[in-house]
């Protein structure tokens, strides 16, 4: 790359075709691209961060709700999908290596494998979503499952019934605004907020958590946003696959493969945190 790289900005057409004219040399172009990509990834972390903050808030204030609601999720499917994404990260990182070494066929196969793993991930996600939509295990007022479905997942009967909108709407159980404000919060508002996690998780609670729908709201928001990122990732992997087939990449120029790889690893990274937070609440 020596002659081409040394060509000055305004010096005719000796520079490589992939070098944009506002960069001095390919190295500067690569570094600028990487900085831009890391800034984008930082933005992605904060983009998801709002939802993680919502998760932290609700889990800190109502740990029982998370304890019971998470039983509906299948940890086996979650763990399987975690392994699938780890494998896809391996093939993506291997693909970047292939591109760096100029192995066109190897790069193409690694990208195809990554796409297959991504497809498997979405397929498992579809199975999980389908079950929840069928049983109305959804967010907000769309939450209206058959209590027997909840009991099949190991949720105690009283908790299952208390979580249903039809039951909470019964006049005897619904506190009026005036009646509910003074007694419990003023007395132990702080202590329940801080010590609630470890105190009484096992016996049937005196106040069964009624808002399991909040867990499903958070579940669908987090996994849905992550799923959109997987779909977008498949799109950009497909785009560099097309360019790899065309022979665009080699040891001199593989920045798009590198950048798509960084994005894909971030999608894996977020799932690494989502899996224990949603599926493994003990």
């Amino acid at each position, binding site marked *: 790359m020596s002659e081409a790289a040394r060509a000055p900005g305004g010096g005719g057409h000796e520079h490589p075709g992939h070098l944009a004219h506002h960069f001095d040399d390919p190295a500067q172009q690569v570094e600028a691209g*990487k900085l831009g990509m890391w800034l984008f990834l930082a933005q992605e972390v*904060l983009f998801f961060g709002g939802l993680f*903050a919502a998760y932290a808030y609700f889990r800190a204030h109502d740990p029982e709700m998370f304890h019971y609601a998470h039983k509906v999720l299948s940890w086996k499917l979650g763990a399987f999908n975690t392994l699938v994404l780890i494998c896809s990260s391996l093939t993506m990182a291997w693909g970047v*290596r292939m591109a760096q070494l100029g192995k066109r066929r190897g790069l193409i196969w690694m990208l195809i494998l990554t796409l297959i793993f991504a497809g498997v991930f979405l397929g498992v996600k579809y199975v999980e979503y389908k079950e929840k939509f069928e049983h109305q295990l959804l967010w907000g007022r769309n939450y209206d499952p058959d209590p027997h479905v909840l009991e099949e997942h190991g949720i105690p009967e009283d908790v299952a019934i208390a979580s249903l909108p039809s039951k909470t709407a019964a006049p005897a159980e619904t506190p009026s605004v005036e009646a509910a404000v003074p007694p419990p919060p003023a007395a132990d508002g702080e202590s329940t907020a801080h010590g609630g996690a470890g105190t009484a998780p096992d016996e049937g609670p005196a106040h069964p958590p009624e808002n399991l729908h909040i867990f499903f709201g958070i579940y669908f928001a987090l996994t849905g946003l992550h799923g959109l990122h997987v779909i977008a990732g498949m799109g950009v992997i497909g785009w560099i696959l097309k360019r790899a087939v065309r022979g665009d990449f080699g040891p001199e120029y593989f920045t798009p493969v590198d950048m798509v790889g960084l994005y894909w690893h971030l999608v894996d990274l977020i799932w690494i945190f989502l899996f224990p937070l949603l599926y493994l*609440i003990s």
Partner: protein
Amino acid sequence: MSKHDASPHVVPVKMLLAVWGALVVLTVVTVTVAQFDFGELNIIVAMAIAAVKGSLVVLYFMHMRWERPFNAIVFIASLVFLALLIGFTLLDSTMYQPQMIPHYAPAIHPQ
């Protein structure tokens, strides 16, 4: 490290496979550990394992180990701001506790 060093770092296949193996093992560990109850430490243990897994992904799969330090600062800054966001949300949220009515959500459960 020098500014003129344009040659990229190519991660050896053995290292890629070792990182992949470690991620698989840590996934098994986090599932296994979740069967035991450590009380309030549960979430800390789970997040610690996830942090180790995430670090492996960032350092090796994302080449951060061989990256220019400035890019690492950009990424770590986002994690610091994420910690501030979550930390201050949790600190501040209890201020509204006396105004909250347990299990009262008329917008979702109309009376």
